[in-house]
């Protein structure tokens, strides 16, 4: 079998210090994105466990996989979950969910939970989408902006480059910083054209690191263009898969001249976590 360089390792996490059996309510948020899916489970409003998996060919199955993976080894059964909110690209097609909420609202809510009430601007760099979101101190969306459907600047675009250069995607960021000097960015407008440009650059003697540097900076530049249209209010933070690529984020923050609030435990679960927080609100409301 050929190596798939774009593949990243799927993973799950659970809080070793908590016992869900003592919790009164368990709720879940499931984010079925275009490239990756996450499920997060809250025990009495606190994050208990989550997972991050690759989205399959259909939304219902991807949602089921994500939920099963998050629950695996915890002893929680799907029927123990009092309320489930679905979000993301595939949100309307999540059979076990009680409600669907847009990923914009969920990302803001999740980022607010992880990064604190000072967060005002969220950049979500997902598989197919780039979003700039403004929110208030409670994580409520006040304004947002999205890219047109275009792979430039998205996780899928990065996968295409990793595949082309046959480097595991997780290593791209670090490699791009290991260059003698910062090369000029490649064409930032189209991944297909950036791909032919990259082949030309490799032929002319550029190293893979240099090509990645040129691609990461093109991506950063494109994102800056989007953010400038919506404006940056501090504090700023980044969610989504590309937030884990230091080659893109370091160049982006440098160009913007801002710092980013780190989101623990995982900036990629902002959508699922936000959905779970909404699920808890909705459940408590239904009990009144």
């Amino acid at each position, binding site marked *: 079998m050929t190596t798939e360089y774009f593949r990243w390792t799927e993973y799950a996490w659970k809080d070793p210090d908590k016992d869900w059996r003592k919790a009164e309510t368990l709720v879940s948020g499931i984010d079925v994105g275009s490239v990756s899916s996450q499920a997060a489970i809250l025990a009495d409003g606190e994050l208990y466990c989550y997972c991050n998996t690759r989205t399959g060919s259909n939304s219902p199955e991807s949602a089921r996989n994500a939920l099963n993976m998050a629950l695996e080894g915890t002893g929680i059964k799907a029927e123990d979950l009092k309320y489930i909110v679905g979000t993301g690209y595939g949100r309307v097609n999540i059979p076990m969910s009680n409600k669907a909420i847009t990923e914009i609202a969920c990302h803001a809510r999740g980022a607010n939970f992880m990064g604190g009430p000072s967060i005002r601007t969220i950049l979500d760099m997902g598989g197919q989408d780039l979003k700039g979101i403004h929110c208030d101190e409670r994580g409520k969306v006040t304004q947002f902006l999205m890219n047109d*459907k*275009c792979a430039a600047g998205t996780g899928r675009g990065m996968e295409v480059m990793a595949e082309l250069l046959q480097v595991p995607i997780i290593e791209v960021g670090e490699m791009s910083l290991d260059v003698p000097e910062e090369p000029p960015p490649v064409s930032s407008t189209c991944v*297909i054209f950036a791909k032919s440009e990259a082949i030309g650059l490799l032929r002319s003697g550029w190293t893979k690191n240099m090509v990645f540097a040129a691609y990461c900076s093109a991506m950063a530049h494109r994102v800056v263009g989007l953010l400038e249209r919506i404006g940056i209010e501090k504090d700023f933070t980044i969610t989504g898969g590309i937030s884990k690529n230091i080659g893109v984020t370091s160049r982006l923050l440098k160009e913007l001249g801002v710092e980013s609030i780190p989101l623990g435990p995982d900036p990629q679960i902002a959508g699922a976590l936000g959905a779970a927080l909404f699920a808890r609100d909705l459940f408590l409301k239904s009990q009144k």
Partner: protein
Amino acid sequence: MTTAGIDMGAQVVKVVVVNDGQILARSMAPTGFEPLEAAQKALDEAIKQARISRDDIKSIVATGAGRKAATFADKVLTEVTADAKGTTWLLPSVRTIIDIGAEEARGISCDAEGKVLDFAKNDKCAAGAGAFVESMARALELKVPEMIELSLKSTKEAPINATCAVFAESEVVSLIHAKVEKADIAHAVHDAIGSRVSSMVRRIPVEKDVALIGGVANNAAIADAMKKHLEVDIVVPENPQFVSALGAALSAAS
């Protein structure tokens, strides 16, 4: 007077040699990573075909995205001007020209003399150009001519959102997994690019006659899709991929 026009395209270099209003030779070479070498090669081939010598060519004009790389040319000309000149020479009644190349598509509005009145082009985006067709053919594991032929056998509509070639490739893969007929996917691909280019062309006034040129004009399925979306009859000249080079060669003579 014998002159040559060179169209330094993103994917293919085209050369046309003309003499007093007659086409003597047409040749092409893949642009590759050494566009100057490709241009030399195509020019040598055209000279051989025309049975003339290099010195017989009195003037050379280069056009196309990579025109500056043809350092031996006497002059350069924008693709838009070259398109208008070449098309109206071949088809004098044309007032609207659509040129779809490997990496770019243009809509040009011109008068009877071939003077450009207005034009529109896609921002560097593969979704509205030949590169889109090629990546979709790859995803379908077909050669482009096979994809065109299959497309004509389609009986059902299939959904493809052609706003990005990278995303459309994943859509095609999902459709294949969902057991949608390849013929229907191929048709959807052509229809999508036709729709996208048409909406770009509508930014300029579309007046009859309308001509489709460029390498992609050889794709009958796209020509059909363009007709459907623009709701107008479209003529495709012979050797549509050489029209820009022809325009450059004609302008070298004047």
